[in-house]
């Protein structure tokens, strides 16, 4: 690995570590209660007392951003994890299914893939109604088609790989050869893609919250905090800018790690 790449990787890991810490133990990092309002201290600019300033209700933006980390990171990991498992199962089934079934499954998948992920998520929320659980479902469903496609093609390739045939010739039963040699191989490829997917799931969830389709006030959620500062952006830029930075560095860090992992996986494969 080149030196610049190594520096970038460790920087991304450090950023994610801080955010993961904030997600797990927000009380340690936060300087106040994220829900505590104080009308006399409304719209204060960043200071040593309020690192990121305060919002219209006088809540500490820094503490709200810290407490919001858990929700954002959680939804990113959960949505990606569930999408990966669903994608693996559906894709592997399509990979071994008869031609007709496979073709039908793939055409449905193609239709879903034809729309941007965010649009699919919006449609799902429109059908299920707003709310934090529903945006989690929506983001998950929107992420699934990519995994299905990749899992299917990997299954097709690995099924006929020489080492799988070799195991069959040695007398390993068909199903066992499949679960031992094919599925882990597919999972390996998918998990690399998933690292990149975490970033886009976080972004999609924050986007839906920003539009008011996610958790409702006063829940500390990055997209929601950002939306809350929209109307006073001229006087109090800090309300929107800091959660915006939080979203950006999280998404960029997750994506950087994912891409480097993928490059290494590709390098190993050749």
């Amino acid at each position, binding site marked *: 690995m080149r030196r610049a790449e190594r520096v970038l990787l460790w920087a991304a890991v450090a950023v994610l570590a801080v955010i993961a810490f904030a997600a797990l133990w927000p009380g340690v990092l936060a300087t106040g209660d994220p829900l505590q309002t104080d009308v006399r201290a409304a719209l204060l600019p960043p200071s040593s007392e309020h690192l990121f300033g305060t919002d219209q209700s006088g809540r500490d933006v820094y503490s709200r951003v810290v407490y919001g980390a858990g929700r954002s990171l959680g939804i990113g990991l959960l949505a990606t994890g569930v999408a990966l498992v669903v994608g693996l199962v559906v894709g592997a089934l399509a990979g071994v299914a008869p031609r007709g079934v496979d073709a039908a499954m793939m055409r449905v998948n193609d239709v879903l893939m034809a729309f941007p992920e965010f649009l699919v998520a919006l449609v799902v929320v429109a059908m299920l109604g707003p709310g934090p659980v529903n945006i989690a479902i929506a983001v998950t469903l929107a992420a699934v088609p990519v995994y299905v496609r990749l899992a299917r093609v990997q299954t097709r390739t690995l099924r006929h*790989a*020489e*080492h799988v*045939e*070799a*195991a*069959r*010739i*040695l*007398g*390993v039963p068909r199903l066992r050869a499949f679960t*031992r*040699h094919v599925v*882990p*191989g597919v999972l*390996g490829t998918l998990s690399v893609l998933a690292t990149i997917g975490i970033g886009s799931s976080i972004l999609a969830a924050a986007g839906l919250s920003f539009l008011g389709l996610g958790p409702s006030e006063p829940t500390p959620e990055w997209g929601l905090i950002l939306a809350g500062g929209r109307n006073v952006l001229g006087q109090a830029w800090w309300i929107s800018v800091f959660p915006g930075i939080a979203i950006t560095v999280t998404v960029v860090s997750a994506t950087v790690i994912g891409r480097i992992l993928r490059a290494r996986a590709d390098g*190993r494969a050749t």
Partner: protein
Amino acid sequence: MSAALEVRGLRIAFGADPVVDGVGFQVASGECIAIVGESGAGKSLTARALLGLTPADARVAVDTLMIDGTDATALSEHGWRALRGARIGLVAQDALVSLDPLRRISAEIAEPLRLHGLARGRSALGARVRELLRRVWMPDAERRARQYPHELSGGLRQRALIASAIAAAPAVLVADEPTTALDATVQARILGLLREIADAGTAVVFISHDFAAVRRLADRVLVMQGGAVVESGLVAEVLEHPQHEYTRQLIAATMHDPRVAPTTPSEPVLVAAEVSKSFGGVPAVIDASFALAQGRTLGVVGESGSGKTTLARMIVGVESPDAGSLRWSGAPRVQLVHQNPLGAFDPRWTIGRSLREALEAAGVPRARRADRVAELLAEVDLAPELADRRPSAHSGGQRQRAAIARALAADPEVLVLDEPVSALDPSVRERVLRLLARLQQERRLTMVLVSHDLDVVGAVADDVLVMQDGRIVEQGATADVFAAPQHPFTQELLDASGPVSP
């Protein structure tokens, strides 16, 4: 006559490790010199250095480098460009990657002519391209010129590549393993073509690991080992009286005497009667009838597409015949060793885990498996600690040994080997072949060895079966077939690999 190419004191290093250390030779016009060695000997790197094409991180130093009267000792990239193609040409090993897939053959050959301003105007270029294609004996040249590389067979692609390399009539032609990926008969034709080019006055540098090919083509030979020339001289003299131990090994590893099998008859374990198999209407094997004798080795020889692999796969039971029958005496325990051991192991598993899986499938109780893995590895001369490594951390020879060990885990009676040594260096190949011979004796194995290499088959097979276009055209005891081939194709194959012993 002055030399067309003269090299003195060529040294190439990556970091602190010298890979080529003080190589020097000269080649006269009309002469062919061969550089022979195994992977890592530095022969390919030497070839690249002659064209100024070493990798960017290589440090190259040379005392003298004269190419066709030009001093190329310290040439800039700009200077090299005027030289390459015009004064010194390169034919690489893999014509498919060397030719631009999006360009027609004629455009590929015309490029050096245009670059060096040797032919102007469409008609002049066209005429020169046609002349070059005729010179490399391209069949159906008019049509081939309009085709793309993927439409040509390996041999024709190699001809096209040679045509483009000699287009600007360079004084020196460097051919880096130009025939390694080709079938024996095609290889013989390409070697003949290179000899013709040398006879017409070009100095040819031929890089190879194969002494049999060298003998057919070269006048003089340099043997390289570990970056240095260990022996050099006239081909006939080196072959007759090799001075260096390594040369002797290489010669022994690439040229065998055909095996004289004991004629004691044994029971057939398998009788095949008119077995046929086709894929999507294209016949792969047609009416194959033969018997596999207990405790003997049957060699299956043929060129790519001859159906030999399909036949092997039917014997193992991975494919079933469309027609005909394979009758076994008793319930057979058959195992297969794949051509490519890297693909035959799960890349995520250690070798030990793959071996344990094979033992599990063979019904060996869990408690016994660890010991059996060590025993199997010892049987194929591998150290037990190699079990903890993944396939990618092994050398090609180690992987093939491990693949053989895995096949033995099931305690087979019949072992089918599909091109087991074709990807290996000669000395490694020699050791694997010796291992197979030993295992056969110790375990009383019956073996089927599929190969395109007559020399390998001649060295280990008791009986041989020659295939062409899906049919068995000749079969019999190896010594008989080699001594008096009946079918014209067998004769051509034997001619192509050179007389195995003079």
